[in-house]
């Protein structure tokens, strides 16, 4: 169905596009090198995971895929932390962080497109849904890129904060998967906002992609979120100098 395809593409592509746009602002002067560094490992990991999806999902009592994804999300966060702190390898580490995210979201999209149930779906609806999803996601990313370009120039702190929110969002996704696999204790529910802002709405998707919005977060997620945000903000304390020296 058209609407499902649009929502699926938005959910998977928006976080990736937002992270890519944010990091492109950072590595603006060497964007071609950044794209190259990001594309090669991304394609490699995507091919590897999507071709072995079935085998991976059967591992660890059926939680193999969730654990792999949570590892990749955590890796993405860790790489961003180190990239923000170390000026020498910032570009390579940032590109690898993006590659981790692409391998997760790309695998999900490929799985959706090639699902056996899609055989009954009208291909034109699938294509139109893909076009709408990619169009909306990439448009938001372009606008996001120009907004951050302005912010980076005049308000570096805002840029740092948005980068940190995007980074800690990956940790939030990892924690959700770990809780789902019972590898992480959940604890009591912190709040319930599903009525006012559903995760499946457009704004819900955007906030989820930007800062890991959860309508019903639990205590462990809240603690991880605060700790992760603090860590990334601390790691990026010299980001302004790092960006200047890179340029």
């Amino acid at each position, binding site marked *: 169905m*058209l*609407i499902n395809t649009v929502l699926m593409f938005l959910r998977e592509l928006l976080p990736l596009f937002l992270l890519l746009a944010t990091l492109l602002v950072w590595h603006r002067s060497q964007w071609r090198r950044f794209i190259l560094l990001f594309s090669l490992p991304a394609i490699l990991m995507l091919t590897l995971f999507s071709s072995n999806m079935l085998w991976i999902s059967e591992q660890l009592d059926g939680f193999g895929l969730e654990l792999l994804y949570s590892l990749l999300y955590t890796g993405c966060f860790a790489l961003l932390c180190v990239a923000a702190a170390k000026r020498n390898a910032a570009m390579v580490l940032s590109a690898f962080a993006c590659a981790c995210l692409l391998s997760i979201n790309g695998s999900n999209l490929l799985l959706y497109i090639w699902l056996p149930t899609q055989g009954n779906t009208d291909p034109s609806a699938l294509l139109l849904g893909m076009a*709408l999803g990619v*169009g*909306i996601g990439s*448009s938001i990313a372009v606008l996001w890129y120009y907004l951050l370009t302005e912010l980076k120039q005049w308000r570096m702190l805002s840029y740092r904060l948005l980068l940190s929110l995007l980074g800690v969002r990956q940790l939030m996704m990892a924690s959700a998967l770990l809780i789902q696999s019972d590898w992480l204790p959940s604890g009591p529910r912190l709040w319930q906002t599903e009525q006012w802002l559903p995760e499946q709405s457009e704004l819900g998707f955007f906030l989820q992609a930007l800062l890991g919005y959860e309508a019903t977060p639990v205590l462990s997620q809240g603690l991880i979120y605060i700790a992760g945000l603090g860590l990334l903000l601390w790691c990026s304390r010299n980001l302004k100098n790092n960006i200047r020296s890179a340029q």
Partner: protein
Amino acid sequence: MRSLRRYLVTVLIALFTLISFLAALQSYRQSASRAEALFDQDLQVLASSLAQQYQAGSQQELGLALQVWQNNQLVYRSPLAPETPMAETEGFTEHNFAGKRWRVFRQTPTALLTVIVAQPLQQRQQLADEVITASIYPVVLSLPLQALLIWLVVSKALSPIKRFSAQLASKKANDLTAVELEQVPAELDQMLKTTNLLFARLADAFEREKRFASDVAHELRTPLSVLQVNLHNASQQWQQSGMADSQDSMLALQAGVERMSALIEQIMLLNRTNPEHFQARTEQLDLAGLCRQVVADWYPQIEKKQQQIELLGLEHLSLKGDAFALRLLVSNLVGNASKYTQAGGAIQLELMTQAGKAVLVVQDNGPGIPPEEYSRVFDRFYRVGGDRHQSGTLGSGLGLAIVRDIANLHQGQVRLGAADSVSGLKVTVELPL
């Protein structure tokens, strides 16, 4: 922003895509919702029709008219259906009955059974409109949003050009420094570089011109002074040696040299007071005191021509201005009045304030200037009547040009008019206090 074109193209495309796609998505959702309601309504009608078959005599309003004919006998009809066949031909047709226009569908599945269903056209139209409106509404609503965003993006993109033109507009006449902008887009960069290059060349040209005029005048002044001294000596020697016949030629020669000296002096002063070069040092000064000093300076010549001069009006008039320039202004006006007024004539200076301005009026009872010449006498090197001025006085034609330049420097103005006496010139200078 590295390139205006790239910025505008990418951001506008992104905006159009985002808003159009979101509007399309919303249209899809709303149309799907309406269509679903429509299908639900059909289900309701079908259920009600079936229910009526088992409840004889029910008059429930269905919105549809239904007839079932068997062997040309009406075996069932809904409350809205007439007792005659609603349509005679198979398929879709349109007919009038019960005061409405109906869309009718007739089907005869077997030779003995005929089913005729009709729906009011108005109701069909209304349902279709609901679905179409639901799909168009988001697109129409998105237009003002698109217009607002386009305005914002274009304003943002053109802001470097606005800053550039604002900097150019705020430049003073003598400011030829380079324009500096941050984050210059590629399209503006070349224009900025060319403009700054032009400013640099203009500054060089002005500096060369200024130096040249000043140097020439300065270099000519020294040999002229020597020439004047030698002429004076030669004139005395000729008188002592009894060559009195050549005295007229000698006097003419001396007058010519004096005129040239005065001209060079005025050129140097004009150069100094040119608004493009002059760096005014404004200070609080007393214009009345300044006028008294000028009168004292000119008094020997005025006395020599047995002219009367008087200073009327305020004894103190404080204003902000450049002392050197204002002294030159008054000096030129008094000097002109003395030069062009006949021996025994009268000159009058009057100081007053009027509408928040200092006003200096200098008038004489000399030959004056014809009103049609008023606008031209401020031109450089312009002399009324050329060298055949009726006063016989030789001038440079620069005095009033200097006066106007100085008045302009002080955001003031100069006006010419007829003197209050029978003849003569009246010069009014207004300066802001």
